[in-house]
């Protein structure tokens, strides 16, 4: 106790001293710059910060529920979208690369460099790229391989790495009682859309799904989810905009019990992993779910396929805060390769469970390591 107090004082004084010492000097320099007519970075006169429009969360009204009378017929997806079909772009790029590698003959330094570059271009990141290339090198040495077989070796290496993380990538349901899945992630990765897609899938599987719109921060986020719920014909629990997301989750748990829903999917507000307060809020949401023992089965980190190396930091922070159980990789239908998941699985052992391949409600497919790897190198 007193140790942490002492630490706070230490850090605070250190930070303070730094400001006090550095600040006057910089201010002087800037003033000099300004006088010299060089436009220093404009500093807007500190505006009166408008108090955010926040409804007092003290008294959360019983949230109204949108109940859809006639459940829309959920047509079963005709033909499951295949990862490979949708990875055309990615494949093309690797194929191009490996086309040049297929020159045959010995594997020279240039070939290794190209292999490395291709992995880097796929956002795999330096550390994992080095490890993967090393793995391929070992394989090549063992097999006495030539350049023709590099694609196969690369595919095997990636597949085995991914398979080593987890053998079961299915989403878990509670044996009895309600199941809760918590969707988390930074802003703009597609949490709400993924929540809706998941709901559609589970409804088609015969589950009674209830959506909890715990994103009370982003304007109209709850409307977005409610629109989806309307289309899918499932129930949604929402609170007031700017209200307490904890209250929404709490009410959703109650509502699920009352109406016999067996699956609650909680859509949370996007939060940058660097915002301590928001991460705490997420921890709180998780605790509320955990009041019902055994209910929380999945905490899914939604990750945009175009995310670069920051994805690792995101994964680390979300693992630390809410112990994520899986990753949903979204927007893989672009040219983004989502290679960061290789690094994430490597470092944190958190498996990718689902892949989002478009804006349609059916464009969510299970992640399959072999297929992912094959699509990459074919």
């Amino acid at each position: 106790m007193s140790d942490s107090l002492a630490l706070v004082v230490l850090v605070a004084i250190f930070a303070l001293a730094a400001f006090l010492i550095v600040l006057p000097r910089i201010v002087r320099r800037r003033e000099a710059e300004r006088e010299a007519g060089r436009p220093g970075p404009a500093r807007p006169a500190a505006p009166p910060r408008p108090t955010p429009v926040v409804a007092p969360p003290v008294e959360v009204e019983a949230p109204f529920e949108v109940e859809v009378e006639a459940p829309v017929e959920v047509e079963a997806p005709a033909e499951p979208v295949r990862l490979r079909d949708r990875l055309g772009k990615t494949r093309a790029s690797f194929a191009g690369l490996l086309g040049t590698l297929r020159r045959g003959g010995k594997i020279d330094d240039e070939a290794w460099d190209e292999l490395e570059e291709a992995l880097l271009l796929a956002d795999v990141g330096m550390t994992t790229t080095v490890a993967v290339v090393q793995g391929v090198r070992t394989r090549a040495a063992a097999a006495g391989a030539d350049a023709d077989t590099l694609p196969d070796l690369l595919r095997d290496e990636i597949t085995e790495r991914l398979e080593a993380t987890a053998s079961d990538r299915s989403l878990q349901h509670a044996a009895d009682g309600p199941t809760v899945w918590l969707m988390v992630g930074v802003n703009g990765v597609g949490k709400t859309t993924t929540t809706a897609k998941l709901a559609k899938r589970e409804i088609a599987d015969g589950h009674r799904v209830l959506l909890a719109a715990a994103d009370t921060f982003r304007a109209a986020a709850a409307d977005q989810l409610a629109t989806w719920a309307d289309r899918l014909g499932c129930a949604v629990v929402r609170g007031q905009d700017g209200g307490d997301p904890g209250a929404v989750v709490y009410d959703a748990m109650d509502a699920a019990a009352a109406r016999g829903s067996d699956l609650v999917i909680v859509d949370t507000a996007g939060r940058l992993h660097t915002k301590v307060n928001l991460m705490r809020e997420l921890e709180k949401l998780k605790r509320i779910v955990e009041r019902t023992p055994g209910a929380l089965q999945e905490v899914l980190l939604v990750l945009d396929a175009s995310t670069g190396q920051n994805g690792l930091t995101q994964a680390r922070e979300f693992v630390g805060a809410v112990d994520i159980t899986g990753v949903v990789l979204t927007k893989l239908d672009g040219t983004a390769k989502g290679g960061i998941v290789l690094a994430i699985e490597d470092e944190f052992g958190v498996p990718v469970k689902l892949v989002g391949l478009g804006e349609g409600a059916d464009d969510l497919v299970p992640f399959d390591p072999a297929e992912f790897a094959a699509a990459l190198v074919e």
Partner: protein
Amino acid sequence: MFDSLSDRFDGIFTRLRSRGKLTEKDIDEVAREIRLALLEADVNVRVVKSFIARIKERANGAEVAKSLSPGQQVIKIVHEELVTTLGGAAGKLTMNSRPPTVILLAGLQGSGKTTAAAKLARFLERDGKRPLLVGADLQRPAAVEQLRVLGERIGVPVASDGADPVEVARNGIEEANRLGRNIVIVDTAGRLQIDTELMDELRAIRDAVNPDDALLVVDAMTGQEAVNVAESFAETIDLTGIVLTKLDGDARGGAALSVKEVTGRPIMFAGVGEKLEDFEPFYPDRMASRILGMGDVLTLIEKAEAAFDADDVAVATEKLRTGDFTLQDFLDQMRQMKKMGPLQNLVAMLPGVPKELRNAEVDEKELGKVEAIICSMTLEERNNPSVIDGSRRIRIAEGSGTSPQDVNAVLKQFKQVAQMMKQFSKVNKKGKRRMTGLPPGLGSGGIGGLEL
């Protein structure tokens, strides 16, 4: 996880210093480190290549060879080159002499277009303009609703009238004329750059409204993909500039460099927070430091300038230097500092902070406790803590809801650190320009020495 570039260079150059001169091989080694740093910052592989080539050329030149500290010199070159690349032509919006000026925002899904649109509207309104927001994202459910709510918050009207995005955009301009608005900001739906149908639609919107500014909104967390995105959008709608969003996270934001290099268009604005006022012009020098992992001191200082009162700062600095820094001063300044956000984030932004401090888990609640303890002291006690005896200590502890041990810990730590800072600021005063040096005891393993 990421070491800053300067940390990395330190190793190489310490080794070199004994030899004095840089050989080509040394420079290759340095180039590798730069490459690694840039790649970890998500700069596109191909952009890194051409960038490194430029650096190498300069590093081989005389300016490095003659330098006494080649490491610093190379870092300076890299930094300068980054600033030049990121900066270039000044990023200013083109204003149409015949209003309304039309600004078109485009980008991938989830890059932050709607938020950026509202932030830009607020920014321009503060600048004396009369913007109108047009919600042409009819794709994502409730996107227009989101824009309406945001528009209401900042007091800017929102128009979204029409059956398809092109019509909505066109009607938006008419609406602006009717309402006497001189700027129209068109928010479009997110789209993948390979989605030809939607890209055609974007082109149609462009043709319909003939924008003065076509801005691409890019997420700072984007990886290698940034290049493909920028290329396609630039081809489709003749971009005039870039808006970089989500810079308040800890992404290095190498995408900024990639996008700039590929499009040649200036990065004009940066989104730096969740609130609508968290939007500012883009500063190339800060971005360069950030990509290199050198700490974002300027941002920090800007924040500090807004939070601290300049005169108070001058007084407090003097006190700190002479050792007259009291608990009262500490309390005052700490309260100012709290306005700047979580302590840990602030410390992380400071250059030269020892790892032990940077990674220290700081509970913000504890800060409140410290405040309570000081508030429970009399003025006399704050100015002269040595008068605090056993019974005063118990009183303070009871008053602040803590224990006498807590009170002790605060007092002891305050005394120690204040003493150290006094020495430090003296050293600093003597002419060391940068805050790289640390007070004795704060270096490696310093915390242990502080008897925590």
